[in-house]
């Protein structure tokens, strides 16, 4: 299944992320999560990388859960401190739904991250998306790891100057990240300018049309899969409309 046409994967990602944004109730989100997990592994996402990414986002996920638990005051109270309700049923449900939403988005991203960039570009080309636009999109996505590397390099260099990050107070840590963010973004801008010059020097965009050796073709399996996904999408939307 990992060799499925990138357009099918894009359609699947569109369904999952749209569902994640539309659904607000836990049972629907749980169903979508199940569907998303099934697709993630069928489409050959890198499980180890996904696990790593989830572990990295775990503190943020917990914070989101905590914020929902603390600030959603509606629903049946489940836990009190003296007379004040601390945890409500609605807070828990909304927290869990939001966590699932993030999880679905990460899983969808993992599937596209595992796809060959050239195949995705070829798929965009077949969908009549202008090459310049799709190429820019791929470059932008490729810049995310560069951005992250620059940030971690800066943190390593700083620690090797004798700064112990773990001993810094939260305020100082936040100030540090704020101070590092601007130069790291500036570095990314400098790199992108260099890349633009290099691309131009290689004649990028010089001709009105661009030919490609690699072409992606929808096979019968891809069409069937697209059809199944389409029907599932319609059924889910209809079901959600009548039984929200």
């Amino acid at each position: 299944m990992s060799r499925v046409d990138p357009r099918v994967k894009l359609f699947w990602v569109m369904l999952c992320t749209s569902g994640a944004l539309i659904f607000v109730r836990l049972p629907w989100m749980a169903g979508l999560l199940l569907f998303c997990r099934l697709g993630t592994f069928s489409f050959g996402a890198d499980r180890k990388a996904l696990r790593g990414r989830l572990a990295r986002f775990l503190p943020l996920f917990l914070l989101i859960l905590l914020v929902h638990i603390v600030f959603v005051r509606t629903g049946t109270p489940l836990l009190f401190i003296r007379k004040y309700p601390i945890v409500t049923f609605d807070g828990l449900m909304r927290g869990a739904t939001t966590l699932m939403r993030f999880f679905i988005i990460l899983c969808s991203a993992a599937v596209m991250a595992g796809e060959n960039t050239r195949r995705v570009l070829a798929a965009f080309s077949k969908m009549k998306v202008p090459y310049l636009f799709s190429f820019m999109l791929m470059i932008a996505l490729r810049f995310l790891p560069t951005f992250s590397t620059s940030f971690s390099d800066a943190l390593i260099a700083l620690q090797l100057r004798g700064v112990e990050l773990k001993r810094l107070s939260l305020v100082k840590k936040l100030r540090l990240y704020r101070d590092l963010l601007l130069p790291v973004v500036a570095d990314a801008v400098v790199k992108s300018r260099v890349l633009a010059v290099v691309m131009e020097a290689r004649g990028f965009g010089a001709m009105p049309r661009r030919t490609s050796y690699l072409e992606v073709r929808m096979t019968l399996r891809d069409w069937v899969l697209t059809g199944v996904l389409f029907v599932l999408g319609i059924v889910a939307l209809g079901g959600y409309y009548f039984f929200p």
Partner: protein
Amino acid sequence: MTVAISVTDLVFGYQKGNFTLSCPHLRLEQGKLSLITGANGSGKTTLAKLICGILRPSGGSVQIFGQATSELSLGEIGRQVGYLFQDPSRQLFAGTVWKEMTFVDHLLESEQGTSTKKAQDLLDRFGLGELKSRSIYFLSGGEKQRLALCTILMGEPRFLILDEPTVGLDKQNRVILYDILDDLLREGRGIAVITHENELIERFAGAPQIKVERGQVSL
């Protein structure tokens, strides 16, 4: 002579790829310059990163002034060993030369007077005194490298590891760098220089050479 860095039965392999570095035994002495030589991709930078604690070994141990790096945080290692990246731009991140020099002291809210004087002295000594307000993006390769070295020396590490410090430098900047290295040695610091350039190897001909070939470290 004090042993600054001691490596025993070190083994390291990257998760992706089949490169493995192995170093059965290595000692780098304080107050001396050692050369780490080898071809591109032989594992010189990996060895340096293992010594500095940027990478953690899968086997064996690295000791810095008698303390195992496995028991030290990166910050604690950094206070004893300074590391100059192959590309110094990677370790410069403040807006101007002066902000770069005082970044750590500003962050830790150290005594401003002392750090200001130290920063000014270092910049003057490394020929960067006139460039205090210049943006780091408008520095030449040689200036960036000297600035990166200055920022490392702000923390007064006892040992320095310089990763291919002569790459991209013209003759004049190379001579400045050699003089700086001589000065640092006179101060009693230990230095390990990663290089494959003959000029540097000849300039420090008497220095012990550590050879790295296809991931195998030998003296």
